[in-house]
């Protein structure tokens, strides 16, 4: 890494798009360089310009984009070159991997053809040779039966496999540089671990440098050597990962790191929320773009935009763009010094009573798998949920975790529809849904409400806030004057201004809309809130605020939460108890500290080890359990233990006789650890693992 000449050198790059509201300044003065073989990270929230800047490097922006500055690759300027020149470099010396591997592959060609095409563009080889090379690349990328799978179409691949194919395509011509744009964002955490692992292998195999673009500071910590943090199109801080994570010198970076829930932190560790939301990129005011959200702002910040300057105290190349970073460095300020301390969050378990608000026993949900538009033929059964038990007591938060396809969404849809389940029972406030009349069901809807993942999609964009909040009350016959009073009260409760009732959802940011959704869910004073991934669609800096709000509301109003999420760190942060789901079953459940500190089920262990930590040293020291393969089809689950096809314990530790038990006998949830605790796991060989 001591070579003198950088592979890629970006200087004062700026990108502007024309728009109806005026020019959008997507990137403003970005400079960075990448040395051969190193991993350079660019992190930022949505709209920070991180993806746009990499597309600019590749010359892949739409023509209306105005690009200025300089991009030098191996000393040669790339900006301003024609399509012909650039296409000789693209896919050859510089390769790119995109976020969503489904839309990034052409649906009408086989995966093999698409990789072979990449080979043939840059090498004069026969069609057959290119195809052979494609198969070899797929094999390298860890795709089983590569020769056969090469003939499959993208829609026949799972998300993880598609991303493997993308990587195979990227390394087809031994590139010098790979630009990976959010390569794991659309993937589940265990698949993310596989892909990150593969990316590192690909890097070793080709010796390429990587530009890694992600919003996830956890992923970045273990992956990148150096890092640039972008905000509103500007780099705000840059340097070696250790410097940035352990010695951040500007308020945005500090706030960001403080707002991420960590899987290794005890529940209740306070998060420092950053108020407000990122600025609009049109008509940016002068001065530091972070000013409106910065607790340290001074008058100067509003007038003069700070430049990136070298920090003397830490490593060689640590830069920050803040008027007060010298002061931060000197006083060694941290998030707790800068950001207002959140409300007191001591947990009060005494509030958890023994009264269950929701009890589920033996719930099953099987869908018929049908084919044919007119004459439906049943060709199988999808066992989306296959016999689960859950219980939530008053004042308690139950976290339900699992990856996509595990059945958690089906579970909450079953609960919320309040219908008679096809098998098993659902009891809300001690009343079985099976015996309810339509009227009963309508009444009980007051007690249980829901907040969905995507705040953009969960409120009707054509209604003003007042109508949105009034709808549940209107439906349940709350009188008009009471409604009006309650709407103001609700808005205040979730931290919005009561004057805003006549505004429309479009006028609010994502975080604010999620607050509106929470307010709506609380309108009828329910006992139980079902929270379906309530923060995963939000930007990192906004999540903390919503999480804190949820906790405060729960404490004040004595609510119970069913908190569904795929993000373990969020679940750990907010839950009292947790249930881990895999392929329609609950594989482990218990008090949150027990499960996270001493995971007993191999799947939980793998999940925990795959969850990234925003802590470079810990990340580097960690040994990851990388699960094999993909989730089996819920239409055809493995015999015996459903996890056995991917179980690391089954594969590496057990002897044949023990294995036979896993194959033959379906393990049930049984008590684990100290007698009396409700920590239970569904594994024949459950044990107390350690969080590494």
């Amino acid at each position, binding site marked *: 890494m001591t070579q003198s000449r950088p592979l890629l050198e970006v200087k004062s790059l700026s990108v502007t798009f024309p728009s109806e509201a005026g020019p959008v300044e997507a990137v403003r003065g970005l400079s960075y360089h990448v040395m051969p073989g190193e991993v350079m990270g660019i992190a930022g929230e949505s709209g920070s310009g991180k993806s746009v800047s990499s597309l600019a490097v590749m010359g892949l922006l739409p023509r209306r984009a105005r690009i200025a500055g300089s991009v030098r690759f191996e000393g040669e300027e790339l900006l301003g070159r024609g399509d012909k020149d650039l296409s000789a470099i693209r896919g050859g010396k510089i390769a790119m991997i995109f976020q969503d591997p489904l839309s990034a592959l052409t649906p009408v060609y086989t995966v093999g053809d698409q990789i072979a095409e990449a080979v043939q563009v840059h090498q004069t080889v026969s069609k057959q040779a290119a195809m052979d090379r494609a198969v070899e690349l797929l094999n390298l990328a860890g795709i089983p039966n590569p020769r056969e799978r090469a003939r499959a179409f993208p829609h026949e691949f799972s998300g993880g496999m598609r991303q493997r194919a993308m990587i195979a395509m990227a390394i087809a011509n031994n590139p010098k540089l790979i630009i990976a744009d959010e390569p794991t964002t659309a993937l589940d955490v265990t698949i993310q671990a596989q892909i990150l692992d593969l990316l590192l292998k690909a890097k070793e195999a080709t010796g390429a440098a990587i530009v890694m673009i992600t919003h996830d500071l956890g992923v970045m910590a273990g992956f990148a050597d150096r890092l640039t943090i972008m905000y509103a199109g500007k780099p705000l801080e840059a340097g070696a990962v250790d410097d940035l994570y352990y010695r951040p010198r500007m308020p945005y970076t500090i706030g960001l790191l403080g707002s991420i829930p960590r899987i290794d932190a005890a529940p209740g560790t306070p998060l420092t929320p950053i108020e407000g939301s990122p600025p609009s990129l049109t008509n940016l005011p002068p001065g530091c773009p972070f000013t409106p959200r910065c607790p340290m702002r001074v008058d100067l910040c509003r007038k003069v935009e700070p430049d990136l300057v070298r920090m003397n105290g830490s490593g060689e190349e640590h830069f920050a763009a803040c008027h007060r970073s010298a002061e931060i460095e000197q006083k060694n300020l941290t998030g707790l010094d800068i950001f207002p301390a959140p409300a007191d969050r001591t947990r009060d378990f005494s509030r958890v009573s023994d009264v269950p608000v929701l009890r589920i026993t033996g719930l099953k949900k099987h869908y018929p798998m049908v084919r044919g538009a007119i004459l439906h033929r049943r060709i199988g059964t999808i066992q989306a949920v296959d016999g689960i038990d859950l219980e939530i007591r008053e004042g308690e938060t139950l976290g339900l975790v699992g990856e996509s396809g595990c059945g958690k969404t089906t579970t909450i849809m079953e609960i919320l529809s309040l219908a008679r389940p096809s098998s098993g029972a659902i009891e809300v406030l001690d009343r079985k849904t099976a015996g309810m009349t339509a009227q009963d069901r309508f009444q009980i*809807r007051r007690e249980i409400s829901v907040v969905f993942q995507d705040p953009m999609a969960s409120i009707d964009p*054509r209604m003003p806030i007042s109508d949105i909040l009034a709808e549940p009350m209107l439906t349940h016959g709350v009188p008009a004057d009471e409604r009006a009073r309650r709407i103001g009260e609700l808005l205040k409760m979730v931290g919005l201004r009561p004057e805003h009732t006549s505004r429309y959802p479009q006028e609010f940011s994502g975080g604010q809309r999620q607050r509106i959704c929470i307010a709506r869910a609380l309108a009828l004073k329910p006992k139980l809130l079902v929270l379906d991934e309530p923060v995963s669609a939000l930007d990192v800096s906004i999540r903390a605020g919503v999480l804190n709000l949820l906790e*405060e509301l729960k404490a004040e109003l004595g609510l119970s939460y069913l908190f569904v999420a795929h993000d373990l760190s969020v679940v750990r942060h907010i839950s009292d108890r947790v249930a881990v789901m895999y392929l329609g079953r609950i594989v482990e459940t218990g008090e949150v500290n027990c499960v996270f500190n001493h995971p007993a089920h191999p799947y939980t262990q793998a999940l925990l080890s795959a969850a990234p930590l925003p802590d470079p040293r810990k990340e580097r020291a960690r040994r990851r359990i990388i699960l094999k393969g993909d989730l089996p089809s819920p239409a055809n689950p493995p015999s015996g233990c459903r996890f056995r096809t991917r179980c690391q314990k089954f594969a590496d530790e057990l002897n044949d006789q023990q294995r036979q038990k896993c194959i033959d006998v379906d393990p049930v949830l049984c008590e684990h650890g100290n007698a009396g605790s409700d920590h239970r796991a569904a594994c024949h060989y459950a044990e107390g693992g350690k969080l590494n």
Partner: protein
Amino acid sequence: MASLPSPIVESPVETTGNDSRFRLILRRFLRRRLAIAGLSVVLLLFAFAYIGPHFYKWRYDQIDFEAFLQHPSATHWFGTTQNGFDMLALTMRGMQKSLIIGLIGAVLSTGIAAVAGATAGYFAGWADRAIVALIDLILVLPGFLIIAILSPAFHGRTWLIFVVLLAAFQWMITARVIRSMTLSMKEREFVYAARFMGVPDWKIIFRHILPNMSSFLIIDATINVSSLILAEVGLSFFGFGVQPPDISLGTLIGDHWESAQTANGYQFYFPAILLVVLVLSVNLVGDGLRDALDPNAGTAAGKGAGSK
């Protein structure tokens, strides 16, 4: 329950209100010069058809016994027919009928499509299958044929029957689009939210689902106006549509097309060209509306003025 002290008070990020959404749409529409031109022409033609007759000395049912088959002149601006009727007066009268047929028919057809499509998509099950089968059936038998076959049965009755029939055979493709839009909107979280708070199904359809397609419905209705005007012309041309004594642009073209290749071509060209101008303008308005209301719409809203 006392209201909580609020930890964070945020204000909206942008200041684009709903009326500024309207202004944005207006701005986008106005930027399309062609759409503006189309709108102006449509308005002019409306005035021409409905106000024009009050300022013109000939009435459509008046015979000038001194001018049979007379070419355009100062007295008869568009000339006369061989029976001495004034072409301009006839054209204005015919335009009235074409316009009103287009408007009523379009509203009816889009209305049927909205209700049928949303019902099929939302309720699934047998209602869905019945509506889809009906749509398939009507698509197999083009409306033109059915209306033509039925035309002897509405001879001598009000033209409104004809309009209803036109609408009854115009809604299917729109209904299909609305059905698939409903299918996806039904899975949207705000619809789930309404369902889980106990809002009745029909209210969800009319409060949440259809209003969220209003852009598409407006565009569709506009395009339908031109489709229906064209359909009217086609049917009336053969005498299957508007029946005498009513006059429409279709009957005029049907009566006079054979003159097109003679020296008396004016009898054909005046109504025909005005008709084309009208339909083109309506289409331009529709296209402008699409750009303004639904700038990202792809093929879903790309239903063109396809019927003849």
